[in-house]
Structure formats: C-alpha cells, structure tokens
C-alpha cells in the first residue's frame, strides 16, 4: 500500500531526488580528490614499494628507478596525475594496476562475484534474524529467551571478527574436517563448476557467513530491542490498544515502523561494507574477495587500483545513503521532503 504522504508529495519528491542527485555528483567529485590525496599521503610511492619489497631482493640503480617512475607516470606533478586518472574514470577506464599489470576492471570483475556471494546473503541473514529477534526481545523483556539472545548478542559484539574466524577455523578443521582456508576443498578447487562443487562451496561458506554476520546481527538486535522498548511506552500505543486494534496489527503498523528507522538509516553503510568491510576476516579465512585486494593495493601504493576501489566504495556509500533516505521517507510518515 502506498503511503498517502508519498502519493501527495510526488512533485516535491521529484525535485528532492534531483537535488540529491546533484549533491551526489559534487560529493563524488570531492571524494575523488580526497581519495587520491589520501593514497599519496604515506611516504614514497609504488616504485618505492616495488623496489623495497615487492621485487623480492633485486637491486635497482637510480636510472632504473627513474625509468620505472616514468613508466607508471609517477614522475608527473600530482594534479596532472589526478586529471589523467579522473578523465579516464569518467570515460569508464579505471586504468591499469601497477602491481598486476591488469586493468582494474578486470581485477574487480574477478573478485566481485564471490565477494557479493558471501556478503549479500550475510546482510540478508542479518536482517532476517536480527529484526524479528529484536522485536521479540522487546515484547518479552526479561524473559528467558531475551536473556539468551542478549547474552549471545553481547558476545557477538565483543569478539573481534578475525578472532572469531580463527576460533571457528580451528573448530572446523579439528572436529568437522572443514577446509583450513578458502572456499573450496582441495579436490574441488580445480574442478569446473558442478552441483557437487556448489555443495562444497556451501559446506565451506558457513564460516565466513557466521563470522561476518555475527557482529552485525548482534548490533541490530540491540538497536531494534532498545527502540522497540522506547516506542512501546509511547501514549499512541496505548491509544491504539484502547481503540481495539489487534495486538499484532498494532505492533507492526506503529511501533515497528518507527523503531526500524535507525536500522534503515544505516543501510547506506551496509553497501560499502559488503565490498570492503570483511578485509581482515577475508585475510584470516583466505577468501579471494575485494577486501584483501584493496588492502594490498593500499600497502603497495598501487594508485589506480586503490583509487578506483575507494571511489567505487564512496559511490556505494552515497547511493546507499540515498536509498536509506528513500526507505526512511517511506517508512516514517513524520519525514517531509523539504
């Protein structure tokens, strides 16, 4: 059912969307400069990183180092490097990774599907589990199950993800014969896609999904529970009850709709977290996702790869914030497009 507010303010909303869209362009422009500057902040550049670490012991003369800088365009002034990069990005060309000598698009294309395969179900799972539990805990405050969920929730919040990953990894490999690292068992690693390989993937997927999802679930439960407790004490709940609304209809039509606001407003941050938030877990679990790719790009000062990824993440944040604003407007009748 379309909210009456949305229906009435259709014109307002169109202009609001256009305004937001223009804002987003300006923000992205600023972000692109900031990203480029931040990546260059640490001392040295990719050639330094290459010469000192990545090459693995080879010695370089000053001439060779200068030649490398020229090859990568790192000898040019900062603003020239930036302009070159940003004009190419606008044309859809994200450049070539210094480390890999492959296009950034190619590198991201390799890792994005698996990244989304892990994080998207995780995010869904977080909401599917956390929101009902949060509501249940609030409605049955201080019940046995409320204590159980609170206990698990606090543990989930308190344990760092990477530590949790190591513990599950240990338990998995010691007691369940799970693969130590990676998403496939050795016998399926090289096999072409098949139903058996898909099952093997599912069998190995539970550790990252649990690890990545726990903290988010725990946090969302606490937020949902707290908000619901506040809302249930509001006079309008009493009023609705007095008017004879059934309890289920009452709860879902009024307090839940308000209590879910903080959850919806943080969806904007979920999108980039899907892509990069799991870097440390991915390293511990050896998952070939985009998180480690970004981390290594930053460590190696692989400018174009790191810059493009950060730009991409920023875009997701901006778009995500926009989406959550729209969701909020839909869910919360108090919000006006002004």
């Amino acid at each position, binding site marked *: 059912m379309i909210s009456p507010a949305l229906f009435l303010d259709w014109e307002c909303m169109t202009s609001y969307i256009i305004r937001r869209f223009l804002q987003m362009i300006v923000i992205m422009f600023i972000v692109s400069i900031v990203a480029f500057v931040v990546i260059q902040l640490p001392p040295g550049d990719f050639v*330094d990183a290459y010469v000192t670490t990545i090459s*693995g*012991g080879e010695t370089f003369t000053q001439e060779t180092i*200068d030649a490398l800088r020229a090859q990568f365009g790192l000898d040019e002034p900062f603003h020239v490097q930036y302009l070159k990069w940003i004009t190419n990005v606008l044309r859809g060309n994200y450049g070539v990774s210094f480390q*890999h*000598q492959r*296009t950034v698009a190619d590198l991201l294309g390799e890792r994005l599907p698996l990244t989304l395969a892990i994080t998207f179900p995780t995010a869904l799972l977080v909401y599917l589990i956390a929101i009902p539990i949060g509501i249940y805990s609030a409605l049955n405050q201080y019940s046995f199950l409320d204590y159980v969920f609170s206990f698990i929730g606090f543990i989930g919040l308190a344990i760092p993800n990477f530590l949790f990953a190591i513990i599950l990894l240990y338990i998995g490999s010691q007691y369940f014969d799970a693969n130590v*690292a990676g*998403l496939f068992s050795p016998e399926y690693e090289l096999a072409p896609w098949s139903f058996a390989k898909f099952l093997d993937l599912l069998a190995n997927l539970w550790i990252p999904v649990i690890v990545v999802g726990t903290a988010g679930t725990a946090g969302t439960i606490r937020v949902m529970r707290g908000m619901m407790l506040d809302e249930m004490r509001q006079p309008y709940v009493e009023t609705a009850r007095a008017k004879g609304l059934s309890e289920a209809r009452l709860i879902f039509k009024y307090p839940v709709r308000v209590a879910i606001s903080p959850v919806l407003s943080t969806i904007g941050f979920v999108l980039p977290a899907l892509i990069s938030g799991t870097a440390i877990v991915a390293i511990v679990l050896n998952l070939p996702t985009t998180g480690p790719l970004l981390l290594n790009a930053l460590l190696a000062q692989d400018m174009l790869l790191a810059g493009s990824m950060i730009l991409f993440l920023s875009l997701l944040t901006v778009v995500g914030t926009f989406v959550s604003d729209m969701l909020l407007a839909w869910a919360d009748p108090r919000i006006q497009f002004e």
Partner: protein
Amino acid sequence: MSRKMSRRKFLKISLSAGAGIAALSNGVPLAAQDMMYSEAPELAELVAAGDLPPVADRLPANPVVIEPLDSIGEYGGAIRTGIFQNRGFQARSAWGPEPILRIGWDSSTIEPNIAESWEYANGGNTFVLHLREGMKWSDGEPFGSHDFDFYWNHVLTNSTLSPSPRSEFVINGELAEFEMVDDLTVQWTFVAPHANLPGLLSHWIGSQLPRWMPRHYLEQFHPDFADAAELDAKIAEAGFSTWDELFNNRVAVQYGLHFDNVDLPNLLPFKTSRPMELNIVVADRNPYYWKVDPEGHQLPYINQVILTNYEGADVRDAAIAAGEMNWVNTDLTFTNFPLYQENAEAGNYEVRLWQTSRSAEHTIMFNHNAKDEGLREIFNDVRFKQAMSMAIDRQTIANVVYQGFGAPSQVQVIPGSKFRVEEYVTRHTEYDTAAAGALLDDMGLTAGDDGMRTRADGSALSIRMDISIGQPGSEDVGELLREFLAEVGVDLDVRVVAREQIRALIDNNDIECGIWIADKCSDSMFPHTPVWHVPFLPTDWNQWGPQYAVHYASGGESGEAPMGDVAQVQQLFDQMKTTIDEAERVNIGQEIMRLNVDNLWNIGDVGEVPIPVVLGTNFRNYPAQGFTSFDWLGNHQYHIEQCYFEGGEWVGAPS
C-alpha cells in the same frame, strides 16, 4: 642409499673446491645425439592422436642432459605450493626459472642453459652467446637469435617501453652494441670487458629477458610490426588506452611465470594452463621443454604446478600445517620451524633445514659519513668497531632469537664460497667486554660513575639505531644489542620505523647506526652486487657509507669522496667488473673481504641460521641440505625438472 650419500659427499667436496659438477661447463653437453627419446604418457597420447609432433621433433638437436641428483624419476604428480599477498620470491624455482645461463649444483659455478655456450672475443670487449639448434618455445615455434634481436631493437631500445636502457648492458656509461651474427649467435660489444655479464645472465635479469623475446607472439602488440587499426582494436578490446599498457600486460610475469596470460610462450618446464583466478594458478608440463635425463626421458617428470596465493602469511602457515602443500620454501621463517615440524607427519611432508645467502643474519653498520662530526670521528676509528663487535654476546643472540642455531660471523660470504677466508669470518667475534672496554678507554671515551661513556666534548655517547619494521628477528636482535652495548657504556637508542622512513634517512644521510639482513653474500651475487662490502649503490640498504655510494654512483659529482681503504675497495670492485680471469677474480674478491674485516665497516651477528624447507615425503631428487635465496632465484640450481614423486603422485594429494 649409498648413491645418495656419495652424491651428497660429492656436492660437499665440490662446494669447498668451488668447482662443481660443471665439469661439463662452458658448453659441451653430454652427448645426446644417439639417444632414444621418450615422453610423459599424457604427451604420448597427444602424439598418437596427431595433436602433437613426436618427441624427437620437439626437442632441440642436442637437448640438455640433466643427470638426476639421486635416481631416474617417474612421470606424474603435482607440485602444490603457496605464496602470500602475491609475493613469491623463491616460489619461482617451482616452475623454473630458466635464465639465459644458470648456476650449477654447487650454488657457485656459472653454466650454460638456454645458451649452449658463451665466450669473450675482441680482447674481452665482445661477449658472444651461442644458442641451441632446434630449440623451441612452448608453443612449438623456433627460438633463436631473431628473438634476442626483437628484445634488443624493439623492447630495450624502445623509449616507450624502456625509458632508460637496462644498466646490465651499460659499461662506463655506454650502452652495448648488439649484433645478430647468425641464426644461433648473438653478441654484445662493450667499451670495456663486461666480466660480470655471465653472472648477471645467470641471475635475475637472465631469467627476465626471455619474456620479452617471443617475437612471433609479441609482434602483434607492437606498433613496429602490427597494423595500426588492428592494434587499436586490440587495445580497446582489452580495456587499455595505450599500446604499451597492452604490451606490458601481455608480457607480465610474476616471478618468471605468466600468471594471467596463457598465450605467452615460454622456455620453462611448465607453462600456465589455468590463469590466476580466485588465487589459484595452474601450470602444466611444457611439451617442448628442451631437457632430458640420461635415459632420454623428456623432462620435467612432474605433471603440473598448482600455486595458491594466500591473503596472509599466517593463513599460509596454517595451510602448510594442514598438509595442503608439498613444496614450500618461499619466505618461510625459522621461528615457525616448530609449527611445521609438529604437523609434518600428519601433513605428509618433511621439513629440511637449508641455508640462505646471509653471511650473518644482520649487518650492524655505523655511518662513516655521519653528519655529527663527533660520531663520525668515532665511527671511523677501527678500535670503536672492534670494541662494538666484541661487546656482542653472539651465543645469546643465537639462543634467544634463533633457538640455538647460528655461528658467530662477520659480514663476509657464506660457507662454500670461493671468496671465503675462515679467519676473516670469525675475527673479533669472541665475546670480551673487558677487551672492548679497554679499546674504548684507549680512544678516550671515558666512563662516568654510572658506567656510561662520554665523548671528547663531554656529551653522552648515545647512538641512534633505526630498525626497519617487519624484518623477522631484527627487533629482537636490536633489543639485545642495546643491552650488550650498555654493558660497555655505550647508549644505543633503538627505534623501529617503516622501511620508507629508513629510505629517507639514508637518502638524507641521517642514519647514525643501521641494521639490515646481511643477504646476497654468495658467489652468484657478490661479484656483481656486493651491497655490503662495497659502497656503490646509493639506492640499496648499505648504511655504513651512504655518501661514498653517492659519490661512486654519481661519478664523483656529489657525495663524499672516499679515501684510503674505502677508495681501494671501490677500485677493487671496478677491477672485478672488467676482470674475466677466474683466479684473478677470486683474488680480488678475497682482497675485498680482507679490507672489510680490517675495517669492520659491517659488524655481523650470527651466520648459518637455517631456513625451513617443506617438501612432500615422497618428493625425490632434492638435496637434503641446500641453499635457497634470491641469490639463486629461489633454488633453481637444483633443477626442479628432475624432481619427481615416488609412485607418480604425492602421497598427501587430495583424492
């Protein structure tokens, strides 16, 4: 078993004699003309089906005959190895590498490889390479002089691909002149003899050149040959914007192996069959590989290499312990030895302890060009460095940091090197704080009531030591050094900073005392890259004479002019560059060693600390004790192509 022992003994003898199995050196291969060749069953099937020419047609006229270390092998199995964060410095010897020339079994002698032989002509100024007749790329196309010509005239001298010519081919500031003499002969003429060129061609650059050479494949990406419209279409299709981006992508290799481009032909025992995807790359046997065993079996024995890139070092260690790999000697650290050992049996692997190219784990370098005049005077006094060396309790370093392994050593060269003089290695390494104190007293660095010494001007003798972050063992050793030096009244102010920070400190000559891993001390690197023994390369990590190095590299235009022994050691290095005669080279090298120990420019801690090497339990023909390091591009001197799995597959292979 007896064969194994005698072989090992032979290795040892050849190591100490510095001669090596390279009795067949300088170009005469074992006679292979009358051999009957055979091949792996998988390849025989392809031949039978008509998909591949017969083995005799694929091999060169005179294939290289490799005598296996212990026994003739059997075909089959897969090497499973792992690197982390795409860094696999030593993993390259799992699939080769095949430099133009190579290092022999003794880890010292230079032998023919891709080139059948080499010689100097024209009074030493011309260096001639003879190639092998009928040798082929992994796609079956002939390999020869035309490939060198492509590299020289279209890659190295192309200003877009190579903004400056490779220093390996520059002598006295002049780039060599290249000439393609005939189909199988190429030569370079320099303005003076380039005596280190065989060493360089058997090392890193020698293993890099072949990737730029397959002209039959690369011409389509090069504007000198390709149709402009077709090339533009290729560039656009691949998502690049310039031709050199596409070209560099097509020739990109990681540690010698093309991880991404399966179409790039190579000369290695293995060629990529599955490009790097989700951290795994697979390389299969190269059907045109140009080496055989004494019975005529085409090598390699092993079918394929499966390489996994791990996202971190720890997770790779966990995978090793879980028995997922059968060949790892990449960046394994000695401190993890117990972890590997504990899980060896269950993981179907064994751990061997090999040696590296480190003459000492660390070189401790006092900056002889220090900006602080007082410190500079102290550091240039040999008594001070002798005192510092004797103040170090090396046994404690070995016990605390290296689990009891390690022998007191100055920064000289590793055991087995032809430049090694035992007396130099151990000079001033005895722990003697009384003698050290006496030397410091002699210098007038008197101790106060608190036991700490003061400089001539009355200020406290305090020296800042900068340690690069992330070097295994360095921080522990630095902490011990601080305690040892305090014992004799010298205050060492230890800081741990980022590598880039050290770089800046060296470049600005702000180092007071530096510490670094003392690697590259082997016969395969010292003669052309003596980074510790001679200050010549200001871009490297030598911190005892950074301004001398600047002076050398700039031809005297900047930096500080050395005098006395420092000037002499630079002159000796110049002589090494132009001296071809082997006996004379040894004399020069040993003279460099003597000047080093006389001046103690570097102070070593402990040498001979081993490195763990993980190998499958039924992996055969690899030495029980060996050397592995960047100096041998991993350990290519042990010929991965003649290794095999007894029974045709690793016992721990996943079923």
